[in-house]
């Protein structure tokens, strides 16, 4: 091992890459959980039994003190979970088929995946951003990895490591994106497993054997037979959303400063580099847990110089890198009180009334820490790119944070000074994109102010922090409202309506008053019983509705009740959900029906006028041939009653015809029923209609019956709609 390492010209990061599970630096627990997950595939891949036992064994072989720590809580719970999943999956694979590792760069995620693969006897196969990662490609890869056996001497099965998965392109050029293929695979797999369970474990042996031989079933959708580990930096990238749902997510936290420092120390010893411990600790701290960065720095700053002092390390400006934190950690650091332990001590000392000197010392240390933390927070915020989102998050949650502000003067300071400051600057930046950026740096300070006022010892957990979504929601809702409003204003009959009423007037009072105008206090539902005033109101409403192009549309609710709904739904636009909804008069169904009916008449009147206006030359034609509207509807028979143009004499004259016709008709229908059973057919009505009209034309009668299975309620007569109106 050491021989190999002495070869020069190699990056230290490569050179000192851990080669063994136990060499891994970092959170032991996470490493173990990952290993556990991979081991879980043993039954599926190698045909071994008890996965947990095999880990135990493999770890015991190492004869290292860590083994004694084995069997802690994590494992116990894991085991329980496993036993449950083993029931469900006949291949005894883990419940979640994909492992998703996330964490900041340089904490050793890729290394972890590779080592775990090696440890459990797989050959890791890596797909990273340098490869062609398209949907079709990944399909092939997965098949290749899970199905084929290597023909080289290395007989170990493959384990797929998909590195840098958050960088995968989400362009929708093809139908499927990389992620969706993965997710689909998993989902298919799940559904198959479910099916198989139902069928019973009959073909289990066969499968098992074929597994051993490295064959997959040719037919049917594929199951995942090899572990897949995905690695990403930012777990909350939108493109990973779907994958997050189906994968087992493990967040790899950066190792502690001490751990890194220890590792660095080891490397320095190997390289004969003399660095004092404090220097290494500072370096580790500045790097934010990025081991790769530390090693690179050590290697190149120490070139030719075998003695690195703390000052020198500190002086290297490369020392601290720009770190972009996930957005939740940014919020967390804003709302976290620096070094809460110290603060608690400080509070305690206050209560204990200990000596003034001690009190001062603690206070001092607290202040020092505070200054340091502010600097840290400042640096963090400097590297954030979406201030708007961060601000929105702070704004929506700052009142919920558990702050010690009894007089509320601090909170009002936030809203009075800092939010105003932020908004002004932000507005300036967005209004003048060319030179607004000079103020960009100032956006940090309002956030710092939030920290100063709203910090609490528990960070985000101190309050009930939620992801800011209200603002977006409000924006989209109000946009929807204004488009609705504009649509309404522009669809009215009068073209200049929109010119006279703008959106603001509409939302502030026009909408409310229109709705009130549309809800008259009509209690009587029969038009015959209306007095003069009511009639006037009714006609007024109808003209308003016609002018504004509103209508009542009959709809069926889920309960099967018919209701009339205003179209466009203006009434829905005013609804306020908050606190005691305002009582509004609701129109009765019958009244709505009445209005709707009257409105139809007005509309017809207008259209027929329009037709006549448009082609005056065709007027005689219309009267002769077309526009024979058959008034079978009750509402028109109503209208017919009102303005009866039919001469009673004529009707009387034709009654004889009708009788005669009725009898012939009956015969006809009887014939029809006998031949083609049309009576049961819904079309039969139309058929009889044409039939009747034919009959009528033969007899040249103007009144006829519609014979409808022995029941008829209307005498038919050609009427020109113009005469009715």
């Amino acid at each position, binding site marked *: 091992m050491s021989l190999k390492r002495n070869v020069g010209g190699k990056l230290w990061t490569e050179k000192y890459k851990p080669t063994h599970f136990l060499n891994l630096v970092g959170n032991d627990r996470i490493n173990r959980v990952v290993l556990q997950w991979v081991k879980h595939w043993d039954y599926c891949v190698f045909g071994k039994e008890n996965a947990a036992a095999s880990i135990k064994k493999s770890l015991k072989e190492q004869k290292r003190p860590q083994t004694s720590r084995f069997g802690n809580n994590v494992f116990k719970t894991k085991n329980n979970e496993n036993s449950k999943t083993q029931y469900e999956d006949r291949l005894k694979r883990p419940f979640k088929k994909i492992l998703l590792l996330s964490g900041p760069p340089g904490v050793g995620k890729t290394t972890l995946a590779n080592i775990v693969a090696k440890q459990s006897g797989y050959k890791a196969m890596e797909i990273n951003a340098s490869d062609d990662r398209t949907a079709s490609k990944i399909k092939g890869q997965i098949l290749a990895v899970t199905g084929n056996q290597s023909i080289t001497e290395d007989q170990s099965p493959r384990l797929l490591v998909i590195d840098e998965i958050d960088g995968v392109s989400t362009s929708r050029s093809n139908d499927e994106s990389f992620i969706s293929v993965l997710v689909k695979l998993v989902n298919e797999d799940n559904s198959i497993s479910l099916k198989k369970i139902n069928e019973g474990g009959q073909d289990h042996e066969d499968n098992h054997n074929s597994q051993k031989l490295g064959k997959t079933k040719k037919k049917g959708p594929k199951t995942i037979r090899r572990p897949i580990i995905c690695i990403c930096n930012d777990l909350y990238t939108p493109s990973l959303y779907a994958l997050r749902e189906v994968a087992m997510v493990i967040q790899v936290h950066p190792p502690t400063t001490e751990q890194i420092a220890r590792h660095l120390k080891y490397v320095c010893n190997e390289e004969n580099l003399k660095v004092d411990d404090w220097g290494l600790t500072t370096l580790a701290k500045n790097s934010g847990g990025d081991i790769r960065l530390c090693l690179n720095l050590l290697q190149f700053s120490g070139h030719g110089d075998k003695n690195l002092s703390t000052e020198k390390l500190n002086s290297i400006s490369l020392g601290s890198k720009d770190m972009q934190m996930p957005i939740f950690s940014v919020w967390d650091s804003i709302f976290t009180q620096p070094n809460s332990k110290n603060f608690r001590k400080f509070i305690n000392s206050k209560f204990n009334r200990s000596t003034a000197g001690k009190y001062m010392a603690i206070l001092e240390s607290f202040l020092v820490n505070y200054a340091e933390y502010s600097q840290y927070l400042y640096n963090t915020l400097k590297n954030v790119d979406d201030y708007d989102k961060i601000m929105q998050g702070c704004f929506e949650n700052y*009142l919920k944070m558990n702050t010690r502000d009894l007089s*509320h003067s601090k909170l009002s300071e936030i809203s009075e000074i800092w939010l105003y400051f932020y908004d002004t600057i932000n507005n300036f930046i967005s209004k003048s994109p060319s030179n607004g950026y000079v103020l960009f740096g100032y956006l940090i300070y309002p956030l710092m102010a939030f920290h100063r006022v709203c910090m609490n010892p528990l960070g985000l957990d101190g309050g009930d922090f939620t992801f800011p979504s209200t603002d977006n929601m*409000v924006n989209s809702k109000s946009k929807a409202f204004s488009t609705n409003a504009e649509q309404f204003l522009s669809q009215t009959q009068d073209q200049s309506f*929109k010119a006279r009423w703008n959106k603001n007037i509409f939302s502030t009072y026009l909408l409310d008053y229109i709705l009130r*105008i549309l*809800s008259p206090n009509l209690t009587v539902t029969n038009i015959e019983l209306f007095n003069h005033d009511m009639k006037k109101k009714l006609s007024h409403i109808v003209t308003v509705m016609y002018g504004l192009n509103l209508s009542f549309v009959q709809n069926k609710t889920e309960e099967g009740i018919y209701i009339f709904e205003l179209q466009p739904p203006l009434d829905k636009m*005013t609804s306020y959900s908050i*606190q005691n909804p305002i009582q*509004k008069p609701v129109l009765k169904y019958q009244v709505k029906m009445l209005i709707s009916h009257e409105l139809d008449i007005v509309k017809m009147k207008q259209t027929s006028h329009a037709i006549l206006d448009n082609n005056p030359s065709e007027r005689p034609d219309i009267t002769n041939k077309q526009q024979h509207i058959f008034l079978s509807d009750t509402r028109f028979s109503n209208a017919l009653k009102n303005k009866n143009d039919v001469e009673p004499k004529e009707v009387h004259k034709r009654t004889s015809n009708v009788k005669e016709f009725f009898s012939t008709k009956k015969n006809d229908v009887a014939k029809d029923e006998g031949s083609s059973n049309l009576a049961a057919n819904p079309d039969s009505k139309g058929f009889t209609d044409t039939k009747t009209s034919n009959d009528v034309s033969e007899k040249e009668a103007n009144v006829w019956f519609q014979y409808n299975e022995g029941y008829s309620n209307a005498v038919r007569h050609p009427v020109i709609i113009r005469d009715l109106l």
Partner: protein
Amino acid sequence: MALWVDKDRPNTLDKLSHHPELTKHLKKMAITGDIPHMLFYGPEGAGKKTRINALLRQIFGPSAEKIKIDQRTFQTPSNRSLEINVISSNYHIEINPSDAGIYDRVVVQELIKEIAQTQQVNVNAPRKFKVVIIHEAESLTKVAQHALRRTMEKYMRNLRIIMCCSSTGNIILPLQSRCLLVRVPAPGLGQISQVLMDVAQKENIQLTDSVAHKMALASNQNLRRAILMLEAAYVTNCQFQENMELPLPDWEIVIKNLGKTLLNSQSPMVVMQSRSVLYELLTHCIPPSTILKKLAFYLVEHVDEAIKPEIVFQAAIYEERLRQGQKAIFHLEAFVAKFQSLYTRFLLDLVIDF
């Protein structure tokens, strides 16, 4: 048009009943056959647009009322195409720059220049010039206003511009100096009730003086709103009674409720609650400054004399901030918080004094 506001809108200067002095001036001007550029300003519902239309009719005759709506497309500098509705007759054209947002400069430049550069070809036309009406001129950006300056002088031969806005505050001074400023104040209570009585007579309904007066009062001297209110009240009630309740828009009731909660208790939780109320109002497209104004006036009505001036002062500050910034909710909530802290302090002082 079906609504009374539209139906009974006076279409000639003679029919305009309120502000007779102003009408007289406009009439004199119209008779001479030439008008300068004009800037009408005054609160909403004072009858600015009606007056402008009546003036146009006086100048161009009834054919000025035959209007059509076109959709015009403009190309913005950033190559986005922009569609705005243009209302026009043979003699005039109406635009609303707020449709164009920050690209109104393009609209002003292209559309107005196009009109300005084409001469009136119709020999029978009563006047040689065309009129461009700019509604909501206060929403014109500064760039667009500067673009107007030269156009207004250069094409004086073919073009008159009539701007219509609620306050001259946002109109740059050079533009104001090029226009004849016409202030249309809100009609007085008497004038409004007179108009209401006229409408009632036209529609053949019974309306007593006192009810009309009450409506005028409730409408905030907004004529349009008063007439709508009359119509709504007529439809929903059998008869006009002296003590009947006048229909108020829902959002005003919501704000009143909000004001009540603010007066009742003060805590961050109340601020949270009021935030959701404010958000809801914003989703209904109630302009933020209107919300602030209404709330402030409600609060002022219901607090002690001693802190009234302070509240009005603060409301003014936050209204300015609303205009400076873009996140209305920040400032509305800040006002709520500020009021709370003011009010709490006031209450505490009261306790200490006793």
